[in-house]
């Protein structure tokens, strides 16, 4: 995992959240020690000629509701569950796109997949890189970056 990719992830998440969700977050690399579980998860794959990378975004329910409220300019209590999940998927889609723009260097051609909603899963020990996301000093979720395939040449 290239160190600059973690930096690119932070940059991508911040740009998307600030531009379209009007939310600024902070990051660290410590595992979540709060009691708030993540209730929403979405992932998207990026594939090049040499490897594949998966970005997974996981969020707590309060943060997901705040995101959807800001995105849709709607009272968070009035956002149906299906719509909330769609917002999380689209957020992941945009983060994937901006991240791809950061890591595109001409030598590898990256393709962006279609984002998927998933049942939230706990962090596993072999996940190579993750960021813990905080909003207003409260745990909001995680961003996980993992290599999913590698072509040996």
């Amino acid at each position: 995992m290239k160190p600059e990719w973690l930096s690119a992830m932070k940059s991508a998440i911040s740009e998307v959240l600030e531009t379209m969700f009007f939310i600024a977050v902070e990051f660290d690399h410590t595992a979540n020690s709060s009691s708030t579980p993540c209730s929403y998860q979405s992932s998207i794959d990026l594939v090049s000629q040499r490897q594949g990378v998966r970005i997974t975004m996981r969020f707590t329910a309060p943060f997901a509701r705040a995101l959807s409220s800001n995105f849709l300019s709607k009272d968070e209590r009035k956002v149906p569950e299906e719509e909330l999940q769609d917002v999380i998927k689209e957020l992941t889609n945009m983060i994937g796109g901006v991240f791809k723009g950061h890591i595109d260097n001409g030598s590898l051609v990256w393709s962006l997949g279609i984002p998927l909603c998933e049942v939230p899963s706990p962090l596993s020990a072999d996940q190579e890189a993750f960021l813990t996301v905080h909003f207003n000093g409260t745990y909001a979720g995680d961003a996980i970056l993992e290599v999913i395939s590698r072509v040996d040449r």
Partner: protein
Amino acid sequence: MAYNILIVDDSKSMRKVIRKIIGLSGFKVGEYWEAENGQEALTLLKENWVDLILSDFHMPVMNGLELLRHLKQDESLRDVPVVFITTESNENRLQELLTLGARGCIRKPFHPEEIRAYLAKIMGESDEAGMAVSDEECDF
């Protein structure tokens, strides 16, 4: 003049946001049409006339590039302006869209002003013309 607009994106929430931005920006809209992918858009276009298509690039079933190719092959649709609102950032792919005849690309994430400015430029309207505020409600 009020324009009919087709919004093509597999994200329902993104379609809502785009629609809201257009409505609040004062752009005169007659009818909005929405499609989840290029195939749905083509089906819709068989029955309905639109003045502008705003399309995503990455979509299941039929992506934005394929949609654009189909539009350009259809004599009745080839002159409808198509603007892409997309996460795609690869310069070669974006250039391919422009070469095929797309009128422009707006990169996601975007500021609302980008859509307004782009549409005003493409549809030939200006702030001095005094666009009327649409009746689009704030409540989704």
